[in-house]
């Protein structure tokens, strides 16, 4: 594996990057008429390194079988690899024990699992759940549903014009009935990296649990859930170079112990009878039915790959790219960066005067540049910013400065089509 020797921290040099890009087969493909792909839609999903594709192939080609039930050799191997994947995830995010890792379909299911497993039993009528104005719909709607089920109240922490949370307001909103604060580690629409350590401190002092939506966090910086101080951490495999359809919920062991099951089915039970059924221990208690075995193994391969590259180096590299993007785009007269706060991670969100984001997206696509144009599943945030949509360029470890420059050139083409 070409990345094995690159452990020393520091900025990734261009030689390194060229070999790293070679680890991602799709980056070599040409689009329709031979133009190269400039992939800047990484917050939607990241591309997969060969190591992940090979892990999927290996599972299906050499040990495909079900887990936790077969007595035969293949099943024993698949079970060992599936549980090893759990241990890899635990190590990657600093969990105290692999049993604190629940495999889900993705961030959305992880959050819904907490809304049911934690919310149904531990959020009572009159209690409060606190979210923020910058959340993705998947970190709003499950709480709205929970509050409706339980007669609880959903409260919202506002953001300022720079896209930063109002911490004083958050502290004020933490009341005696606030059971949970649910917020993004990093905003998917703005890239704002929230001061989650401080928020967790405030919450803990108030006896309030903290859930972090880590979909855009874990992919951009080294994560240690103990250091973050949260109680729940949710993320998706496909946004961190792994397969689609696999996700993770980390929760403190005592919480998983106390929580109600989410879905019922095989594997999550100890005994079943019509007189009463007893639950398996966590994490099996929350993994009803055959899990996405290949997905878990593929995700572990992605995390192994990232450990070899080094998350701190990736963080520095991406920070450099985002800084370059802010410089280049920020100097274009018709471009307005959205909520250009200082704690931006992985994402540059912007509007172009006189050109709707969709038209910007179409012109960029025409030049081989993939970005996202839309509301980013964050309609309350768009309303707060006073825009219907934004253009979002989001970077990954394999992006290079030239691609940011290509984005700028693409925007120049858009200006030509849409003369003011």
């Amino acid at each position: 594996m070409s990345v094995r020797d690159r452990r020393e921290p520091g900025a990734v040099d261009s030689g390194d990057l060229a070999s790293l890009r070679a680890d991602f087969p799709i980056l070599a493909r040409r689009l329709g008429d031979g133009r190269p792909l400039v992939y800047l839609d990484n917050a939607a999903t990241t591309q997969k390194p060969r190591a992940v594709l090979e892990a999927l192939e290996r599972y299906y080609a050499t040990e495909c079988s079900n887990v936790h039930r077969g007595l035969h050799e293949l099943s024993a191997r698949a079970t060992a690899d599936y549980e090893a994947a759990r241990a890899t995830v635990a190590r990657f995010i600093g969990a105290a024990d692999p049993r604190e890792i629940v495999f889900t379909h993705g961030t959305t299911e992880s959050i819904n699992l907490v809304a049911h497993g934690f919310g149904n039993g531990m959020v009572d009528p009159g209690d409060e759940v606190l979210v923020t104005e910058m959340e993705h719909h998947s970190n709003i709607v499950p709480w709205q549903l929970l509050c409706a089920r339980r007669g609880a109240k959903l409260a919202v922490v506002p953001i300022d014009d720079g896209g930063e949370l109002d911490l004083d307001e958050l502290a004020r909103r933490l009341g005696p009935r606030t059971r949970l604060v649910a917020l993004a580690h990093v905003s998917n629409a703005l890239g704002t990296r929230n001061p989650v350590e401080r928020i967790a401190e405030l919450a803990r002092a108030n006896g309030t649990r903290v859930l972090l939506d880590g979909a855009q966090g874990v992919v951009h910086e080294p994560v240690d859930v103990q250091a973050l101080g949260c109680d729940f951490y949710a993320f998706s495999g496909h946004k961190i170079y792994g397969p689609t359809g696999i996700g993770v919920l980390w929760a403190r062991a005592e919480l998983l112990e106390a929580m109600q099951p989410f879905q019922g089915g095989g594997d999550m039970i100890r005994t079943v009878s019509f007189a009463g059924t007893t639950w398996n221990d966590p994490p099996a208690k929350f993994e009803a039915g055959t899990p996405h075995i290949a997905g878990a193994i593929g995700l572990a391969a992605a995390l192994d790959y990232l450990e070899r590259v080094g998350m701190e180096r990736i963080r520095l590299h991406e920070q450099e790219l985002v800084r370059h993007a802010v410089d280049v785009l920020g100097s274009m007269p018709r471009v307005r960066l959205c909520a250009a706060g200082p704690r931006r991670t992985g994402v540059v969100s912007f509007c172009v005067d006189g050109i709707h984001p969709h038209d910007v997206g179409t012109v960029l696509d025409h030049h081989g540049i993939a970005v996202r144009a839309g509301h980013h599943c964050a309609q309350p945030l768009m309303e707060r910013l006073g825009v219907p949509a934004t253009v979002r360029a989001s970077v990954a470890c394999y992006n290079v400065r030239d691609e940011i420059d290509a984005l700028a050139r693409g925007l120049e083409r858009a200006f030509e089509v849409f003369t003011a």
Partner: protein
Amino acid sequence: VNDLRELYQELILDHARHPRNHGAIAGTEHCAVGHNPLCGDRVVVYLDLRQGTIARATFEGSGCAISLASASLMTEAVTAASLEETERLFESFHALVTGGLEPELAPARLGKLAAFAGVRDYPVRIKCATLPWHTLRAASRAESTRVTTE
């Protein structure tokens, strides 16, 4: 690559920049809201309907160049048309932008709407072009319900 100008024709850009018939018709019951949940675009279409004929059509809303121009050119095209003619126009327009109708074979009644032929090469933008028409149809039936493109 097909030329971007095929999509963004001068006529379309002009109507996007200066939408015609933009505004509400006070007091009409023939009005409907169209919504594209994918992108958050929203359009409201108002009709002054007299004995099955559209005396006047207007719209409000913001959106991309394609949806604004489509709404603007639509309101011009349906003015003084009967609802039956309007329905036939929508069918032709729909076929044109979804690729079911070759631009060369487009019926003359499409007139300026033929400028939207380029949309067929951009499948993700079809909904931008058709949302105003779906909304107009709802307005003509005085459905006060929300229209979506999903």
